């Protein structure tokens, strides 16, 4: 039966080309045009050229294959022990950005050329979801052969028995130099006297400053031996403005709900957050009150308040990168970010010394062999090369993507990051005053941070006093910290 306009109206439909139909077709057209306009790589491919691999392209404008080949040939790779005599396949889990995964694919390609019997299947997982994915796979017995792990969650895998102790491999490996690992070395990745991971990167915390703000105010740059009092004085003098023109003297509030709070904010004053075994919270002490009196009451007027911090920070970036702070805390991750994403004229300074100690935090990441691996010997060959001096130069130092954990790879790292003034201070920190002691990294550290956050936010916005806040934190954290035993 022909649908007349009358019958359409009876049914509630508008005859002809109605607004809804127009919107539908318009959205579909825009979508098709948008998706077609974005096309570049064909379905099923990532524009790769040369060797098949599971990570996609092995060359890009940022990491051209020819340059990578030349670097690969110039490096001295370690001798392999337990080289497999027949083809085996190992899986390696990483968490790289889309641009950097090309570099990983290049490493795997050259590794497979050096070791024709080892086939590498790379897995790249978004950083935010990495721990979730491999915690589930670990519980279900499906971990890859080699996996990346951060200081903050590696102990979860160690204590669950999911990682292989590599001490016997290290002892058998010719020329393996444990002393070449700087800073906290392998301390994050050890348990029960055994080593379960080889350090891949370290991140000491120092200070960064905005040279233009200092120059405009006629303020001298920080000295190498400056102290917290010096920092406070500079923050006072450089703090200015209001609203959108506000320039904070220092960009970060001294959080207690922060794994690095111990070495950075408490230990310079002779206080601690947890005891060295991380089983008891000892923050309710006169020294800790002195420390937070400094950070909250003396420096407090020159840093963002809780509400200000929440309104001006975006996805974890700070007032400093938004060009609203004269100084801030800094890790090596900030170098590339500041160079590529901001116009800030920045420099680095030592983390200032406190009245009782000169100490700062260092974290790190490692690669480990998992107990689910059926090819542990081949996995060691990969792990050893990846974390060797040559491997760290190839992956981290030559790209400036991360700060290496081996002292022998730092010279290349410093030159590749443009020999930025003060960048060598990261290595100075690692070799002298950066520590893992006091960094909260055992499995209960996540829950500890969750417990401290609501209490410390009240202290931050002055609705709870420092002594009361510290007492509440200690009482709340102790039952949880005890589980670290």
């Amino acid at each position: 039966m022909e649908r007349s306009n009358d019958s359409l109206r009876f049914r509630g439909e508008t005859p002809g080309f109605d607004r809804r139909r127009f919107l539908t077709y318009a959205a579909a057209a825009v979508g098709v045009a948008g998706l077609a306009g974005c096309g570049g790589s064909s379905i099923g491919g990532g524009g790769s050229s040369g060797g098949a691999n599971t990570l996609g392209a092995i060359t890009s404008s940022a990491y051209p294959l020819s340059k990578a080949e030349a670097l690969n040939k110039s490096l001295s790779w370690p001798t392999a022990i337990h080289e497999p005599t027949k083809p085996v396949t190992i899986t390696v889990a990483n968490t790289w950005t889309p641009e950097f995964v090309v570099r990983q694919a290049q490493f795997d390609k050259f590794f497979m050329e050096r070791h024709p019997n080892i086939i590498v299947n790379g897995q790249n997982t978004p950083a935010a979801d990495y721990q979730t994915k491999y915690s589930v796979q670990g519980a279900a017995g499906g971990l890859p052969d080699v996996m990346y792990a951060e200081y903050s969650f590696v102990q979860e895998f160690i204590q669950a028995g999911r990682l292989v102790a590599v001490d016997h491999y290290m002892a058998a490996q010719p020329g393996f130099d444990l002393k070449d690992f700087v800073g906290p070395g392998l301390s994050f990745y050890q348990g029960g006297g055994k080593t379960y991971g080889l350090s891949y990167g370290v991140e000491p915390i120092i200070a960064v400053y905005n040279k233009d703000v200092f120059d405009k105010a006629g303020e001298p740059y920080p000295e190498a031996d400056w102290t917290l009092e010096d920092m406070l004085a500079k923050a006072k003098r450089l703090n200015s403005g209001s609203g959108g023109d506000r320039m904070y003297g220092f960009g970060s509030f001294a959080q207690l709900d922060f794994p690095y709070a111990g070495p950075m904010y408490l230990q310079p004053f002779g206080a601690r957050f947890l005891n060295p075994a991380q089983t008891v919270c000892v923050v309710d002490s006169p020294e800790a009150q002195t420390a937070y009196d400094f950070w909250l009451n003396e420096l407090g007027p020159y840093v963002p308040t809780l509400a200000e911090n929440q309104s001006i920070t975006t996805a974890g970036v700070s007032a400093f990168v938004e060009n609203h702070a004269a100084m801030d805390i800094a890790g090596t991750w900030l170098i590339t970010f500041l160079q590529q994403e901001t116009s800030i004229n920045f420099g680095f300074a030592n983390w200032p010394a406190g009245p009782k100690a000169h100490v700062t935090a260092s974290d790190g990441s490692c690669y480990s062999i998992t107990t689910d691996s059926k090819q542990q010997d081949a996995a060691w060959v990969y792990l050893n090369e990846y974390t060797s001096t040559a491997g760290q130069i190839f992956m981290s130092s030559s790209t400036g993507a991360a700060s290496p954990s081996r002292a022998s790879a730092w010279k290349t790292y410093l030159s590749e990051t443009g020999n930025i003034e003060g960048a060598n201070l990261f290595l100075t920190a690692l070799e002298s005053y950066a520590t893992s002691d006091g960094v909260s990294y055992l499995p209960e550290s996540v829950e500890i941070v969750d417990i401290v956050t609501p209490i410390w936010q009240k202290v931050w916005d002055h609705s709870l006093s420092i002594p009361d806040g510290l007492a509440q934190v200690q009482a709340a954290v102790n039952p949880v910290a005890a589980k670290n035993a």
Partner: protein
Amino acid sequence: MAVHSGIVSGRSARRAQRLLAYILLIGGACAFILPFFWMLSESLKGNKEILQYPPDFFPDGFHWDNFSQAWDSLPFNTFLLNSVVIAVLSVAGTLVSCILPAYAFSRLRARGRNVMFGLMLATMMIPAEVTIVPVFVAFNQMKLINTFWPLILPSWFGTAFFIFLIRQFLATVPRELDEAARIDGCGHVRVLFQILLPQIKPAIATVTVFAFIGSWNNLLGPLIYLRDQSKYTMPLGLQLFVSSQYVTKYNQMMAIALLMLIPVVVLFLIAQRSFVRGITLTGMGGR
């Protein structure tokens, strides 16, 4: 004159009410559209504009190349194809596996029907986090890890909420229609597909949209089960832009997020007609 002034004041009051209604509706619409406008604005900004404060809604120059750069940085064509395949098969499985038990719960009288219905609803209480490891173990033993099957097969075994939704909608359709069809010689299959399904198009459309959105936006499933990047889906591809260690290209991330929205919006616009038509027909029929 008094009547005329009354009519005029009545018209003025109605105009004022209409104006107020429009102001409220426009304000509400702006509030809802603002996040999408911000996404569009961010996606067109250069690297150094995205973090500036105070924020600027209008980019200095339109960086349309953010879309192509983001799309080309990863094999998003592959991710898109994977997402479409999984979503289409999941939706098909959902419809098949939810319509049949909903018909049974609604129309068939069997001993223990209500108990079974209650048990089915009770499964909605179990959080996904509880079942994720045993389900992974099961698929691992079936050697289905790193395939699409763990993402498609569960939808072919029913979803409690959708079964409930369709069952409730079927309950509003008069049984007289079934009986009339039976008298004419229809069996269960023809009653369901030729008599009842056309009556519950709004419910079908709702289930289709929700099932599509659930599959399209699913991150945890592909994250856990897929290992090869060539099998990744759009949400995983988008997550690869987010990095806690290095530089995050927020403008490109917004560009991809906008592109991901398009199929969902198109599907909703297509399905929206069914909602309106169902409501209109229901009103005209006096039911």
